[in-house]
């Protein structure tokens, strides 16, 4: 279980947000609040802006010992050009996309099925299995890296997408969250569907999933972010650069640009871009996911 999944669990149990609109005249206090908030927000964005600024300078202008200035004097996209020409970053981005997609799809499918099974059926050993899975909430994946590394290699999945992705799919917390959600869906709809002769999978697909959109989105988004940004496991398992994910490749492959700061920062910007763009597009959905609106 990744830290992000932990957080998703927390998010899911957070109280739902209530929005209200109030119209008031600005007071002195309000002005102070706005100024302080704006100042902090800008301060918070500075590191990313500094990376962007450095990446757009010529190498000689960016290097240590030069004076610090924010606006590049000599605009240059040389760093980006070199990196994109080398192509590493595109490989890693594609790998990250493949791995995170496998993880997200499998997590959604497996956890939904399991949660539905626990929520709607009684079967032999149910309580034992559920208890065992809930106990898994407390097992830290990071403390398992040693045996997992060995296991994955023994399964000949070392250095493959499956080796990267499959161990990340085990997310008991997601089963837990989804089961709680399914438990709360009234059964009347299902009864109606059953009378129409629908099977269990059809009921899940036609009745349960349509009302589960927000929570599925929340689980999916957090699984995706968590997997995309996972560092330790891919670092262990993707030894060859052609199989590295973005966070690992950025860190592990020296590529001779250690001393070229504009290029290094270009690399950082490229590395940050995919999820930042996704975040900006789906901002509302993601923020609501965190805020637990998914449970509403």
């Amino acid at each position, binding site marked *: 279980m990744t830290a992000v999944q932990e957080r998703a669990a927390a998010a899911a149990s957070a109280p739902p947000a209530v929005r209200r609109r109030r119209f008031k005249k600005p007071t002195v206090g309000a002005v102070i609040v706005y100024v302080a908030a704006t100042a902090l927000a800008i301060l918070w964005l500075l590191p990313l802006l500094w990376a962007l600024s450095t990446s757009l300078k010529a190498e000689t202008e960016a290097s240590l010992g030069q004076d610090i200035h924010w606006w590049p004097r000599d605009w240059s996209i040389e760093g980006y050009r070199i990196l994109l020409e080398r192509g590493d970053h*595109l*490989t890693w981005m594609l790998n990250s996309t493949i791995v995170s997609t496998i993880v997200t799809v499998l997590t959604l499918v497996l956890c939904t099925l399991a949660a539905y099974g626990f929520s709607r059926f009684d079967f032999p050993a149910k309580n034992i299995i559920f208890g065992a899975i809930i106990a898994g909430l407390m097992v830290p994946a990071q403390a398992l890296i040693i045996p997992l590394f060995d296991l994955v290699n023994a399964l000949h999945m070392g*250095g493959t997408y*499956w080796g990267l992705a499959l161990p990340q799919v085990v997310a008991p917390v997601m089963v837990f969250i989804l089961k709680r959600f399914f438990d709360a869906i009234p059964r009347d709809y299902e009864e109606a569907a059953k009378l129409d002769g629908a099977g269990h999978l059809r009921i899940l697909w036609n009745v349960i999933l349509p009302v589960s959109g927000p929570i599925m989105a929340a689980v999916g988004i957090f699984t995706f972010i968590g997997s995309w940004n996972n560092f330790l496991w891919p670092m262990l398992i993707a030894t*060859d650069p052609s199989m590295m994910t973005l966070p690992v490749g950025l860190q592990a492959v020296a590529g001779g640009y250690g001393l070229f700061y504009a290029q290094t920062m270009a690399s950082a910007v490229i590395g940050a871009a995919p999820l930042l763009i996704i975040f900006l597009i789906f901002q509302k959905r993601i923020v609501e996911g965190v805020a637990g609106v998914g449970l509403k």
Partner: protein
Amino acid sequence: MRNHPSPPGSISRRALLTGTAAAAGVGLAGCGSITGGLSGRTRVKQWNLLAGGDGAIMTEMHGDFSAEHPDVELQATTFGWGTPFYTRLVMGASSGNASDIATIHLSRLKSLSPGTLMDPIGVDELKDHGLNPEDFPEKIWEKAFADDELYAIPLDTHALVNYYNKDVCGQVGALNPDGTLLVTDGVEEYFDLLRAVKEVTGEFGTSLDTFGGWRQFWAWYRQQDGEMTFADGDYEMDDDKALAAIEIMYKMAEEGLCPTFADGGQCSANFETGAAGLVQVGNWEINRFKLFNPDNPEWFSMTEMPSFYNGNRYTQGDCHSFVLPRHNSWDPDVREAALEYAAYMLQHSFRWGEGGGHTPAYLPVTESAEYQALQPNAEYSGVVQNVQFDPDAWFSGSAARLFDETGSIFNQVYALAMTPEDALALMKERIETLLALPSPVD
């Protein structure tokens, strides 16, 4: 879920072949279509740790190799120097997912458990590629063996050397009439030189890598003829000599003759920007310094380490070598191509010496008149005789634990955060801890 599809790995390789080849810095950028790479070429994956100025030379040589071997597709990757590289190599080899060929430091061969993690190389195989045992210095050739099997193909000898800024050293009268650096004898004489240089630069006398303190320590300790041996859970070290070596670091930093904090990049930058008139660093920075001033690549020269004790100009050094990480099964074509690559690199190592500053291990190159005449390489050619390899133990060697752990202590000494006495005590403590560990490679 039920039936495992074949690993998607194959898809990406196909799609991204061109990308990764270029990625590897082979210089193939932009040529060929997306699928062009698959046209029956033999792919050889090479991993190296040459992130410095010599890495650029290796990349250049890879370009030449690729041009002359259109049937071989060479994918080279540079990982962070030292532990990150070795950890990756071992983890890859333990699962059979390492590269086909890799560069290592010869001093690390035994610590890589060659018996289980490397594949032995047949001497006959080498002969087939034109490499003969008598083409290598005997001392180095012997180090390439473990348990009577050949595991490594030595590429070079490299060592700490002393670079000097000709202009600055000229200003303080430290040059001979022929423009070479005056030979000093003893610590004080050299410190006097540094003081004079500091006057000119206004900042430091010499620069050095405060993160790589083991190298300087070992050079200065060996110059006193200090011995260090490890056997049966015990070790021998001359405390007085060790303390003397550490005191040099402290005093040099205390007086501002060298930086208190400089990583590899900063260390060399100090020399380039003129903050320091000399720099004690590996010969591999030669290319970087030449490129710094392309209009006048002879703004600096290099010589052997100054003698601090007994007239010894001993220096710390090692050998880059090629090894073949263990494969679950070898494609004969790949193995053939990997060895062909190694042979090519050795036979063309004149460029490696000229550009990378390393002294080629391949004697037909080193003994050639062309190489002998090479400047400034000739000026420090004595390092091959004076090079001191690290002590023999599973935790010793370039970027091994002794190197790393003592290095972090010496880093504190340069930063003046630890006295030489405390540093020595801590160093001994670390050595004792290392000795107490069961060897993981026996």
